[in-house]
């Protein structure tokens, strides 16, 4: 088990999120306080509709909170501009979704490299030697696909992969820019038990080898067993 003395990567202070439909307000998160430590696997569990995914989207800068603060290494990301958030998302966060969300027109290797290509396109916008850097991105992507056991599937398109393989490609994709944290929304929610085990093995292996931090929203008790910590979201707040 990880030691309590580990440094905090993310600190969530009194986070609120409401959705509006005309005049009616639906309060989903009602003051979430949470800390995510470096290199841990944190599982967030809770009943359906309690706001787990909403919390993950806020952590992933895909949405803005109604109130409250989110700090990444003491940096308040809720104060970021749209432009800064986009860059932050690209460089510091990796996503794994329940429905893999791979781009169907691109091969596994290209899907994995995509985040790196976006990063390179921003950082070397006016650099003619772009192609060399892009080569580096593909090398990393190959390495990542090897590490999730898909070295034979580099040129395969999502439609040519099984459910578990797709999810492993999605995990490799999340790691391309060596993010601070990987946010996973029900990563085993759409695959069978046997495949789920292999996906969980991959997650755990990456965590152990690379000290990669994971925040995982799940219903899967097997996943929470493998997590370093599990928190319950109840009534829009972290329980206990």
């Amino acid at each position: 088990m990880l030691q309590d003395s580990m440094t905090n990567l993310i600190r969530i202070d009194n986070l609120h999120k409401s959705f509006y439909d005309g005049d009616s307000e639906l309060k989903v998160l009602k003051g979430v306080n949470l800390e995510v430590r470096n290199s841990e696997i944190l599982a967030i569990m809770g009943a359906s509709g309690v706001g787990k995914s909403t919390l993950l989207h806020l952590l992933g800068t895909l949405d803005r909170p109604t109130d409250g603060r989110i700090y990444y290494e003491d940096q308040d990301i809720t104060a970021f501009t749209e432009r800064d958030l986009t860059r932050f998302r690209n460089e510091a966060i990796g996503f794994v979704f329940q429905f893999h969300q791979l781009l169907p027109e691109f091969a596994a290797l290209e899907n994995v490299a995509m985040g790196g290509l976006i990063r390179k396109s921003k950082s070397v916008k006016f650099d003619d030697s772009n192609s060399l850097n892009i080569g580096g991105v593909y090398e990393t992507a190959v390495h990542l696909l090897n590490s999730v056991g898909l070295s034979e599937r580099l040129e395969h398109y999502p439609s040519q992969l099984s459910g578990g393989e797709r999810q492993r490609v999605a995990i490799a994709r999340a790691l391309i820019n060596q993010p601070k944290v990987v946010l996973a929304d029900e990563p085993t929610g759409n695959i069978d038990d046997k495949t789920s085990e292999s996906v969980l093995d991959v997650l755990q292996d990456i965590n152990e080898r690379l000290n990669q931090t994971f925040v995982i929203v799940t219903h899967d008790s097997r996943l929470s067993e493998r997590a370093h910590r599990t928190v319950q979201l109840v009534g829009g707040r972290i329980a206990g």
Partner: protein
Amino acid sequence: MKFEWFVASRYLLSRRKQSFISIISIISIAGVGLGVATVILVIAVLDGVEHGLRDRFLANEAHVVLRLIGNNFFGDYQDRIERITDVEGVVAASPVVYSQMGVFQTGGEGIKDTIFVKGIDTAQEDKVTGFSHFVEGSVDFQTSPLIKEAALREGETISGGMVVGSRLAARLGIGVGDVLRLVVSLDENPGSIGSPTFLVDFSNFVIIGFYESELAVYDNQIAYIAKETAQELYDAEDKVNVILVKLEDAEMASELSVLIEDAAQFSDIIDRAITTTWLETHASLFAALKLEKIATVIIEALIILVAAFNIASTLIMTVMEKTRDIGTLRTLGASRGNILGIFMIQGSVIGMLGTIAGSALGLGLCWLLSNNVVRPSPLYAFGAIALLIICQIVIAFRRLIPHGTIRKLGMSVFWVVVVGFVLYCFVKPISLKELGLSGIYQMNELPIRVNWFFVGFINLLSFLICWLGTTYPAWQASNLKPIEALQYE
């Protein structure tokens, strides 16, 4: 390859499930292409007609016509011509007795037709209008042996030889050697009592040649006789009523006409000289052609606009189809600018490909319509079409050729080659003469003249319209919120 190009190019050549979008892309490209091709072709025809007419007018006509108000005869014309030719920019000038005469129908006791008759000095006229080059037959108005032969045969006095417009000759049913009786003047008899009677002055001419300029307006109504003969007919010894002037640069006609009037040295009080330029003579025709061109450009721009709407709707569908992908790309860190770029590139490439394909098709058709080379038998064209159909059937069943980029590229090239070959076999210069339209359009073949400036302009316009058509869907895509896009069903 830049990130936006990388994604956009893949969307344009999308595979499998999204192939519907790909087909719409092809239809969009075809729409723009047909619009551009049509406008290039139509403008080339209109430009060809305008320049064909200009060239023919300039080949047959004087650039400036000098006469007196009331068409009065005037003397000292050779002196005046010398002074006119001294004007800088004037090449030559020719004296003409210009008149209108009636064609008398023998046996019918009446005037059958009226024609314009030019009494010319052949040598001088040649320098101005190149008259002799357009004559089939003789131009010896006074010494042709046909004159004596006709006098003996008909037992009538023959005033001289006459060259008539080819269409006029056909209309009157006359050939070389025939005699044409003309009513030179028709004066009211001063001694008539009651209803007026007229004194008719006849003159007989022998047809010695035909004038064929390919301009119906001349070939249909003009005849030429010797200047001296015309002077005798009108009792105007050493006088003419028109001086025709040729310039170095026909476009300078308006500027030089004032100097020509001055050089002619007519007394403004007694004889007021006026000049008419070739542009003024045909002003209404050129104005009509110009108006037609403007109307064509507007209509064709609307066609391209429709094609641009097609592109817009294609892109809107693509955005809808790709909404979840857009969400994914945003979560991966793609900015609004990246997404905007992807769809702008996609639309712009469609517009550009359509414009290039349209230009190639339009210019190719222009070339085919203006080059009269021997074409292969249409059977070869049918053979090529059959081969293409067989290939497509084979590919449809995927039995021989594997699926892939090379096959796609190969088939695209094959399609282009077959379409080009079929057009080469079938598209030929259009003969207006064979269609019986040469009288209306004043020329024997449909003229084609590619206006390169306009081709450039329409390319730019087409691309601009298509580019504008892509802005809304691209903007719509870039404004999708990542979370909403991800959850899009």
